[in-house]
């Protein structure tokens, strides 16, 4: 019998009927660095949220055993009491407070409510030394770089007598040097006896630091093995390994002239000088072509689309040429300029960046093309209703009335409404960001068919997708992105597109 500090057994979890974890088993040995790998949406984050008590006991089935004791967490506090601390991608620090205040936030060392600053400072000082940080505990956190802030997070975790430290994509916003430093610190913590669960997309990092690797795919545990039994090929094979069924409509396309082209598109990262959100990206899409953009979360795919569309708020495009149907364009400052030039973008975040949830379908459908159906600022309501009705019929949106509120529709129908909105602007180039995320299989198929019809009619479609089978089957060409760069272009005509290749280049492979 192995000495497991943590054992999660037969974990099953569903979200309103959709199973995301099937009978997952996850065992972690004491004092090891255990890497959890899987594609986007494989269920890693859900599993960690169960472990940390974000999804309380009762919302899932299965057992969690920590140091031989069965645990039932009903809140994050409970899991922290058991010594489990999770550090998320987005940092949970209060920027305006000092390092010391942040480390003890919520766990202040106090005597009847009066904080004992001497004790706190002393302890914070020790923790910082342990992590090779030379900053004083009184330093304000927002003055630190992202890498050091990450270490403060770890210090905060250590202050709680952490037994199992979980890091979720800790290096996604760090520079090379900071990442290297973080990995060294983790090794050091391992020497001191802290167990660590490490989630990362970066396969080279995983292979460098892991003692054991668990791969999960489609909500199931695929394999748990020591590091020596993996290399990057076997790791990728385990992560992919799914069958591609025949549910994508077969279609032959004949791409025409280039409709949109960008060259040297660069957006610097304001927070970390020297790092880029987008780093000299060049790509093009032709008339009647579907171009896929693949990559891992945080690779810069959405930022690329948003920046072309003039919607990347707060960031500056430092360089880059944009050409739409042969005409050089200025970089768009507002989405309205892009829409007028024949470009349309639909966000991956339907709720936040797509729908006017409390408005009816007609309002949602016409909002982007009001100038086409109005005269001197007055809307032609008959025409508006006609267009909305036609769109809803053509795309087979299931709704009781076109005056239904958008929030009452299912995900698939909401997406269709947004597509109708986009089509009414009569775009030459349509960028779809995760067009089928979270929608039912039937609507998915209809959206694929619609994409084929649109490209047949000469529209140029750029599809950002994390679902590999989807991007592989729908695209004529695929750009694979990694850390703000296009790391590879793959062409279906040359039979270059495989899941293994996409994952390889997405993880930074050469």
């Amino acid at each position: 019998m192995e000495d497991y500090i943590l054992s999660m057994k037969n974990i099953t979890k569903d979200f309103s009927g959709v199973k995301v974890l099937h009978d997952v088993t996850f065992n972690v040995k004491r004092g090891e660095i255990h890497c959890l790998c899987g594609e986007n949406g494989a269920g890693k984050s859900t599993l960690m949220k169960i472990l940390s008590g974000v999804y309380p006991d009762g919302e899932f089935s299965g057992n969690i055993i920590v140091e031989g004791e069965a645990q039932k967490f009903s809140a994050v506090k409970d899991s922290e009491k058991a010594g489990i601390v999770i550090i998320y991608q987005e940092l949970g620090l209060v920027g305006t407070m000092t390092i010391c205040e942040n480390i003890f936030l919520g766990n202040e060392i106090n005597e009847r409510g009066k904080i004992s600053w001497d004790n706190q400072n002393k302890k914070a000082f020790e923790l910082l030394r342990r992590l090779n940080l030379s900053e004083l505990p009184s330093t304000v956190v927002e003055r630190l770089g992202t890498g050091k802030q990450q270490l403060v997070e770890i210090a905060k975790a250590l202050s709680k007598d952490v037994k199992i430290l979980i890091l979720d994509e800790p290096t996604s916003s760090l520079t090379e040097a900071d990442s290297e430093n973080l990995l060294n610190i983790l090794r050091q913590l391992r020497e001191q006896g802290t167990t660590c669960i490490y989630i990362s997309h970066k396969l080279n990092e995983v292979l460098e630091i892991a003692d054991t690797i668990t791969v999960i795919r489609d909500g199931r545990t695929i394999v748990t093995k020591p590091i020596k039994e993996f290399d990057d090929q076997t790791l990728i094979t385990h992560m992919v390994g799914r069958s591609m069924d025949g549910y994508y409509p077969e279609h032959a396309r004949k791409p025409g002239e280039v409709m949109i082209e960008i060259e040297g598109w660069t957006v610097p990262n304001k927070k970390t000088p020297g790092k880029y959100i987008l780093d000299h990206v060049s790509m093009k899409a032709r008339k009647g072509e579907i171009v896929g953009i693949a990559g891992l979360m945080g690779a810069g795919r959405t930022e690329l689309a948003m920046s072309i569309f003039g919607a990347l708020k707060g960031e500056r495009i430092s360089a880059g040429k944009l050409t739409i149907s042969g005409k050089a364009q200025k970089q768009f400052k507002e989405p309205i300029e892009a829409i007028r030039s024949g470009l349309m973008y639909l966000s991956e975040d339907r709720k936040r960046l797509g729908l006017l949830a409390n408005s009816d379908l007609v309002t949602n459908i016409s909002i982007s093309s009001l100038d086409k159906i109005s005269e001197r600022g007055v809307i032609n309501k008959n025409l508006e209703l006609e267009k909305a009705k036609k769109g809803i019929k053509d795309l087979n949106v299931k709704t009781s009335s076109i005056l239904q509120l958008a929030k009452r529709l299912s995900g698939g129908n909401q997406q269709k409404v947004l597509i109708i909105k986009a089509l009414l602007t009569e775009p030459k180039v349509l960028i779809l960001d995760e067009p089928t995320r979270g929608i039912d299989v039937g609507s998915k198929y209809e959206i694929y068919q619609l994409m084929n019809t649109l490209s047949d009619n000469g529209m140029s479609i750029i599809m950002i997708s994390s679902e590999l089978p989807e991007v592989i089957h729908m695209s004529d060409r695929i750009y694979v992105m990694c850390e703000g760069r296009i790391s590879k272009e793959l062409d279906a005509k040359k039979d270059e597109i495989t899941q293994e290749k996409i994952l390889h280049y997405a993880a930074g492979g050469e």
Partner: protein
Amino acid sequence: MEKLKNSIKYNFLNYTLIVELVIIFLLFQLLTDGLFMTTRNLSNLMLQGVTCSLIAITMMLVIVTCNADLSAGAAIGFIGTFAATIQVASWNTGMTFVMVIAVSLAIGVWHGFWIAYKELPAFIVTLATQLVLRGLNLLVGGGVSIGPVSTEFSHLGRSYLPGIFGGESFNGLSLVLTIVGIVIFLAISISQENKKIKLGLVESNWKKKGPMIVLYAAIALAVASIFIFYLGFPFAIIILVVLVVIFEFVVKSTVFGRHVFAVGGNSEAARLSGVNIERTVMAVYILHSLVVGLAAVVFLGRIGQASPTAGTAFEFTAITGCVVGGTSIMGGRGTVIGAVIGTMLMASLDNGMSLLNLGQSGQFIIKGLVLMLAIALDVISRNKTG
């Protein structure tokens, strides 16, 4: 059964305003021994409420975009003093109007610049303007009342429509206007309903819809008769009605109106849909400021002289009126007519409590609680429906 329950609940939320209005009127009528509901008092009441009601129309648009304007009352005060000073210095009335429009524009652009383009919180920006305008009021007026304004100028605030028949116990011209207005209202309502039925948006249901339209017409007639059988329509009320009609149209049928509600409903989604948020918010503040200017002229005309404290807390009445009338402080939802009725309800409270000789203390407490209750209703109902 569930359906019936839902329908009652829905209708209750829709008609709370009317229900509140009826309750308050009956209550005051009883408490004041019939003093409250006389044509004379109701006519005065509405004239007192007209300034805030005018502000409320565009205040509604401001709130719909998730912003606020706390400076409206101070603006009324300052513009009043400014206009009165020009009047007293015997410039002509036309010139006074031009200057008022210029000042209003300046305030609107100032707000729009900081709130729309620099993304400062509207609450603070307009609070700052409130102080600045109060200061300017004292500076220009020297802290004393200024007046009187010319009769020509005070027409807008003080005068009534002339009678056409002469000597009758009611105002003929007002009666004719009312009848014409109601006929137009009936014609538009019926043709719009027909259009909806033809497009298949609603099922033909005249049994339910018909009485509703007639009821609205009857309410309008009842309100109008207050003036018809007193001194006729005041110009101020005509201005209010015209503005309500214009802004109903702006809200329902123009691109600008759509953009305003889209910005308030989900500004990021609106931006990605091609709405220029900065320009929309700027336009809302400019429009609002112009309406505040107009309200200031009407108010000054009615009072006849400007004072350093004029307009105090008008923005409070207008904002409360908007919220009472169904404008959501979380943005994206509101109606012109609701805002005006809500504000008139606040004016009724003022008037009724004055008739009852309730002191300032009681009035403040009750008005504060009304605002609290209205906001609680809005937030709780929104949280429930998600």
